[in-house]
């Protein structure tokens, strides 16, 4: 058995923050209209952890990570807020050459679809070599040797032959390994994995997650996963941040978020999972659609879809309420004045079987 919740909480108290996002606002302009994709989101990332950002499509989870890699689309910009990395405010970066110091070198990224992430017309080896040359300062034969080594590390056998092959000669899972190899060749501090397994079959998914886990230990990486698959989250995450409508509404240790969710959205999301449902009975279904980000949002963005919404949710935006030193959520339900609510039965069951200690401590 792994560490207890108390040990984990203490351990996080001593960990060093590697990236601090504060009140970040990211906007896009689309056909003359302004869209607020990230609405004053704050998040700390600790060195060496694996953090999962969960949210449905359009919740802004990809935009958030792109904003601290300088990879927002041309029509998007950081409107306010800060992103601190090694005492530098990345949010103030304006020039490509500033980002060159960060991208790849400090923070590398892998993407969802391995089928389109590689240049189809260049050999796999040369694409990895590019990264090696950029960030490891190796040239020619030495760079080539380095590529062979990385290929073996990501589980691609016969690297000398594979080096010369083109992406179309690789299967989906193998291509994703190549993409990971490119990221590893950068020797980054932080690795961002944007839905790394969504496009893959389950059995291959598992292998890729194992590989990422192995590499994280090997290179002492901080890994940020972006995903919507709560199964994957449970597998890889030390901590989980839940995003809804451009804001991080709940963040905590994986155990805390799964066994003791506080925000109604997190609760609803978990109880809508068929894995936690009871066969023959209805699942909990979240009605409606996420809010339109072109419009200004008042109060809690989730309120219109929330059957437990308070009147205040429609008027005031909730601040973070602390649940434990490592767990906080933006919901008025945590305000002392709020009425008490029952946890959904699916979560109660989950907790009573696996996570009773989570609540006991706090």
């Amino acid at each position, binding site marked *: 058995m*792994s560490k207890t919740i108390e040990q984990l909480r203490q351990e996080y108290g001593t960990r060093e923050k590697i990236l601090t996002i504060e009140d970040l606002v990211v906007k896009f302009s689309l056909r003359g209209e302004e869209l607020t994709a990230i609405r004053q989101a704050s998040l700390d990332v600790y060195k060496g952890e694996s953090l999962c950002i969960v949210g*449905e*499509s359009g919740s802004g989870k990809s935009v958030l990570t792109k904003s601290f890699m300088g990879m927002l689309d041309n029509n998007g910009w950081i409107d306010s807020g800060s992103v601190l990395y090694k005492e530098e405010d990345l949010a103030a970066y304006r020039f490509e050459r500033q980002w060159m110091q960060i991208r790849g070198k400090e923070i590398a990224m892998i993407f969802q679809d391995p089928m389109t992430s590689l240049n189809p017309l260049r050999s796999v080896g040369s694409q990895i070599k590019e990264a090696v040359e950029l960030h490891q300062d190796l040239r020619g034969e030495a760079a080539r040797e380095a590529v062979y080594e990385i290929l073996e590390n990501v589980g691609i056998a016969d690297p000398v032959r594979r080096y010369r092959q083109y992406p179309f000669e690789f299967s989906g899972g193998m291509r994703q390994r190549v993409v990971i190899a490119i990221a590893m060749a950068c020797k980054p501090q932080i690795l961002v994995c944007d839905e790394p397994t969504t496009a893959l*079959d*389950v*059995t291959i*998914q*598992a*292998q890729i*997650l*194992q590989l990422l886990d192995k590499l994280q230990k090997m290179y002492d990486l901080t890994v940020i996963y972006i995903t*919507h*698959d*709560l*199964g*994957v*989250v*449970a*597998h890889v*995450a030390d901590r989980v941040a839940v995003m809804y409508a451009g804001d991080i509404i709940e963040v905590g240790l*994986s*155990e805390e978020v*799964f066994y003791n969710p506080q925000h109604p959205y997190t609760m*609803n*999301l*978990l109880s*809508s*999972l*068929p*894995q*936690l*449902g009871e*066969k023959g009975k*209805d*699942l*909990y*279904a*979240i*009605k*409606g*659609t996420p809010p339109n980000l072109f419009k200004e949002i008042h109060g809690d963005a989730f309120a219109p879809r929330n059957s437990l919404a308070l009147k205040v949710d429609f008027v005031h935006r909730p601040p973070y309420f602390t649940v434990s030193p490592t767990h906080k959520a933006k919901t008025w339900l945590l305000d002392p004045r709020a009425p008490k609510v029952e946890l959904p039965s699916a979560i109660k069951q*989950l907790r009573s079987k*696996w*996570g009773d200690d989570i609540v006991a401590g706090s």
Partner: protein
Amino acid sequence: MPAPEKLLEVKDLSVHFGRGRKKFVAVHKVNFDIFKGETLGLVGESGSGKTTIGRAIVRINPTTDGQILFKGRCISGRIARELDREVTQKIQMIFQDPMASLNERAKVDYIVSEGLYNTKNYTCEEERKEKVTKALLSVGLLPEFATRFPHEFSGGQRQRIGVARSLVMNPELIIADEPISALDVSIRAQVINLMNQLKKDLGLTYLFIAHDLSVVRFISDRVAVIHLGQIVELADTEELYENPVHPYTKGLLSAIPVPNPRVERKRQIHAYDPSMHKYAENPPKWMEIAPRHFVLANEEEMEGYRQNYNHHAKDAI
């Protein structure tokens, strides 16, 4: 228990694409039945041929070999006009991608009525409208949506429009081809609940095609596992999840992540290597290992499976 009525029988079904050297065997000699009122889950990875089977049943993909029987009558290959009409009406399909499966240039009214126009299943304009309204209400949509275009709806709503389009035909069997895998997690429950509720209310039968085993477990009565165009195992849902026999099934089951960190971190994954089978000299057969539990194996393997199975069954007791 009286033998349940077989609604659909698939016998030795094979589907090949292309010819000559480009020939690709998508489905190879597949056998299964769907009983009236049940949900049969069909699980497999991409390229396993599961979608091809579904499409062969609704006759979008032509069959190469074998037969598909609906209520005892053959519906594969060339069939009579009358039967064609009837089958078109009785077997409906729900598609994977709610963004792609609705005609963007038509209003919801036309989309839902499309089947009615084809079968002329109404006497007057009012009756048609009434049927559309009824179908929309039964999937939890508002009748006023009929005058809108698909653009205006969210993924979950669009998927329900797709369901309404099938319901209006009064189908008996619905082929649901990955109906929730393109939906956001928060919306999946809507569609799963709807399908279950319709099954209860209207006595529908489903063939539920998916790659996500956890969803299949929740929704299906029986599950068939397909690998590279062949069904390798078929059993009642709980039986299959508790006592998987075929190594592929085991591998697949062990690979599903569960939303429970403490369980998930300890999960072991069994890798499956197809070369473990010695099928060249000793080809496999479709055999019953326990009542209503079938597996694809040759005699030699079967021996091992049996021993293991009995072992497990004892443990379970």
